């Protein structure tokens, strides 16, 4: 009998398929993974610590940098949390809510496109990457039109939005969602029937519904294990209760199931965006809360109240009453939650970000142990992790 010796292999932090700076220590027996230990923290920027030294308005740009593939979702989670803390959730104007939902769903498509592109590229299907990035570019252009930035959007504000939609953007969005379902068909045409694709993902990275809940998986990774749970429907925020959409659930528990969950989510997002466009009526985009919301420039230049409010907000910020709240939103990767403690001062006393990828990554060892080393790459892809959010 041949003597077998276990080998330890270091994967990452500089490795193309670890999607950033994830390091995995893999203990191998031949090609089989015996033990996988993730090491994280290479991108730790101390977002939570920094936020304790900034006013509530100033924390907003930090949240873009968490999950940089879905910046508007982080913005949304944060502004909703602060609005809840202030108790002004009900005074957000309808138009602002609809635009928030519209961009949240565009962001979901954008994030899923990167997931599909990189997941397929890791497994060896290169063509899909180019197609996905072409569509992502269209969404990036919309980002740029509304916020001036392609990735770190910082578009939402506590109380509403930083500015209204520019002319012609509605048409861009409409053209995009008219074309998008056809593009999803193209991706499916390239992948779903592809024998290599099927062999690489069917039955790979299996996790039962019970284990998935126990380890804290959320988002598409959980819905791929047959758990019918989506915060947009179950704990609606920003007016999601008024939209008609289906929560995409698959029973397969494997990478194949999660692939189908995300593809369907892209189609459902298009449906939600179409409803947003139909709902969009002219109106204010900021709440009528002068002590909280930054006044329009016109107001600052022409009225003394506007000037005083601007001065107070810039030099001091607003002061929510003491208390603590938690707000979770359905990010493309799972539940992103903001837990904010206020001591009555102008800065968050403590802000904790519940990062979806951080918790989801915890499931990786149990999904890959006992399987081949090639499956590790597929499982990292299917968990759809973003290291900016894991390390914060």
């Amino acid at each position, binding site marked *: 009998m041949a003597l077998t010796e276990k080998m330890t292999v270091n994967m990452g932090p500089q490795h193309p398929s670890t999607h950033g700076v994830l390091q995995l220590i893999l203990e191998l027996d031949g090609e089989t993974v015996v033990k996988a230990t993730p090491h*994280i*923290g290479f991108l*730790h920027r*101390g977002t*939570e*610590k*920094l936020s304790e*030294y*900034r*006013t509530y308005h*100033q924390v907003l740009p930090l949240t873009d940098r968490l999950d940089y593939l879905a910046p508007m979702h982080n913005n949304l989670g944060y502004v909703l949390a602060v609005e*809840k*803390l202030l*108790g002004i959730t009900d005074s957000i104007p309808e138009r602002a809510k609809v635009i928030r939902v519209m961009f949240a769903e565009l962001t979901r498509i954008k994030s899923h496109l990167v997931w599909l592109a990189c997941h397929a590229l890791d497994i060896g299907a290169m063509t899909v990457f180019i197609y996905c990035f072409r569509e992502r570019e269209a969404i990036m252009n919309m980002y740029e039109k509304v916020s001036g930035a392609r990735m770190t959007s910082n578009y939402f504000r506590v109380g509403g939005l930083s500015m209204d939609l520019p002319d012609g953007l509605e048409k861009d969005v409409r053209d995009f969602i008219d074309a998008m379902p056809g593009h999803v068909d193209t991706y499916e045409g390239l992948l779903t029937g592809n024998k290599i694709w099927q062999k690489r993902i069917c039955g790979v990275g299996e996790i039962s519904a019970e284990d998935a*809940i*126990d*380890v*804290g998986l959320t988002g598409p990774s959980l819905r791929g294990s047959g*758990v019918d*749970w989506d915060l947009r429907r*179950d*704990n609606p925020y920003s007016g999601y209760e008024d939209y008609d959409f289906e929560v995409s659930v698959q029973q397969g528990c494997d990478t194949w199931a999660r692939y189908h969950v995300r593809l369907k989510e892209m189609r459902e997002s298009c449906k939600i965006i179409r409803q947003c466009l139909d709902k969009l009526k002219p109106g204010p985009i900021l709440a009528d809360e002068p002590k909280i919301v930054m006044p329009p420039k016109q107001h600052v230049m022409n009225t003394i109240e506007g000037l005083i409010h601007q001065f107070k907000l810039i030099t001091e*910020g607003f002061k929510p009453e003491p*208390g*603590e*709240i*938690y707000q*979770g939103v359905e990010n493309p990767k799972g*539940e992103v*939650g903001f*837990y904010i*403690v206020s001591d009555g001062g*102008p*800065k968050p*006393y*403590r802000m*904790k970000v*519940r990062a979806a990828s*951080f*918790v989801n990554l*915890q499931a990786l060892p149990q999904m890959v142990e006992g399987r081949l080393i090639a499956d590790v790459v597929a499982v990292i892809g299917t968990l759809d992790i973003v290291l900016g959010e894991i*390390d*914060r």
Partner: protein
Amino acid sequence: MSEHAVVGKLKGKFSSSVLEVKEFRGETTITVKKEDIVAICSYLKKDLGYNFLCDVCGVDYLGQSPRFMVVYNIYSIGTKDRIRVKVPVEESDAVVDTVSCVWSTANWLERETWDMMGISFKGHPDLRRILMPADWEGHPQRKDYPLQGPGREPYQGRLS
């Protein structure tokens, strides 16, 4: 506002353990004694269906006694309900029993709390630093830890 149903049940079963109940913006926060946290969490999970642990974190109330709070944000996928449980922790005895035996999720979340706040968890299977390097000294999220890091000039510019 009526009391959350869980509060009554917890008070019935762990009457000596519930220290404080607070309602704020429709959210319920229950402060309990740290000795009973595992029993209370198991009860919440097994009998009341709070099967999902969203988050664990520490909060440093420097200057108050007890100094720390460990906060558990708990969710029930069945009833779609959220609840928050907190335990006060003294600085001189910054140890809490681990709940990773109740929810596996707690494993990394408690490691992060240890790393950032310096609160350790008794019975934790693998209590190592997670975000900071293994040889790091100090716990960055504490209020008395300088923003610039140890041994450096304080930042001269404006912070806000």
